[in-house]
């Protein structure tokens, strides 16, 4: 399987594991979409990279250790950005009634798998 196919299969597995997700975007840390199911992927990828970059810096500056994720919570849902190694970003959009604990559990595992491919 090519790298792109492997990435696509991880994308598919994420959506199977977390069917409530509204969108999934995997991007480079400088904000370019790699694989995704979002109509707005270029913009989401850029914003995810910004959120991750700023989150990393805040985590470092305030002695929180390595960043795990950046969470944006609105009235109508969540946007969660995970580091996928040094080169990648995994961004998930979920509705407000989603189980955030379950999302973290699955997403951290998928982020680690993505990290090995990117």
């Amino acid at each position, binding site marked *: 399987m090519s790298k792109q196919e492997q990435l696509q299969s991880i994308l598919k597995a994420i959506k199977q594991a977390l069917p409530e997700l509204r969108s999934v975007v995997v991007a480079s*840390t*400088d*904000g*370019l979409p790699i694989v995704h199911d979002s109509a707005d992927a270029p913009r989401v990828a*850029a914003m995810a*990279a910004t959120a991750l970059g700023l989150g990393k810096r805040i985590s470092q500056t305030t002695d929180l250790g390595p960043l795990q994720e950046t969470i944006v919570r609105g009235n109508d849902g969540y946007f969660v950005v995970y580091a996928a190694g040094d080169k990648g970003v995994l961004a998930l959009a979920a509705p407000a009634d989603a189980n955030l604990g379950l999302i973290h559990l699955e997403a951290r595992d998928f982020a680690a798998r993505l990290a090995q491919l990117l």
Partner: protein
Amino acid sequence: MEPLKVIITGPVGAGKSTLIRTLSETEVVDTDAAASEDIGKAMTTVAMDYGTLHLGDQLLYLFGTPGQERFDFMWDVLTEGALGMLMLVRGDRPEDLGPARRMLDYLLSQHPVPHVVGVTRQDRPPVWGPEEVALFLGLPKERVVGLNATDPKSAVQPLMRLLELMLAEEESRS
């Protein structure tokens, strides 16, 4: 004297992060990520840069924006509350001047503040000088300053010019 917030913007590779690193008196907050495209450098700013600088008694907060257009949402976020704008362009990349003009027009339409254009890489001829860039951008020549972003004495020049304009603006308002 109240500290003044200054926004430092301009196209990718203009020297925004470099200028802030050169001038900041406090540890710089930067947000670099590895560039996955060929943009002529290894790292690129994805969120912001931040540093501080005294010019005489006046404290400036320096906020640098990302240069790549896909991060344009950060331009507005960071420009909020800024009292002056320094736009950097590379003197050896005149093809960046068109995009720089559009960026400047957009930002000034949203945030009409005193502004100066800095033309970087003046130490690496052949480069466009500030007069040529002023002509191209249709700006008064006192609003365009040449500099080398790696040299503290040179990098501070456009900010001194900007501070004069900001203080004059403040005076005319009061």
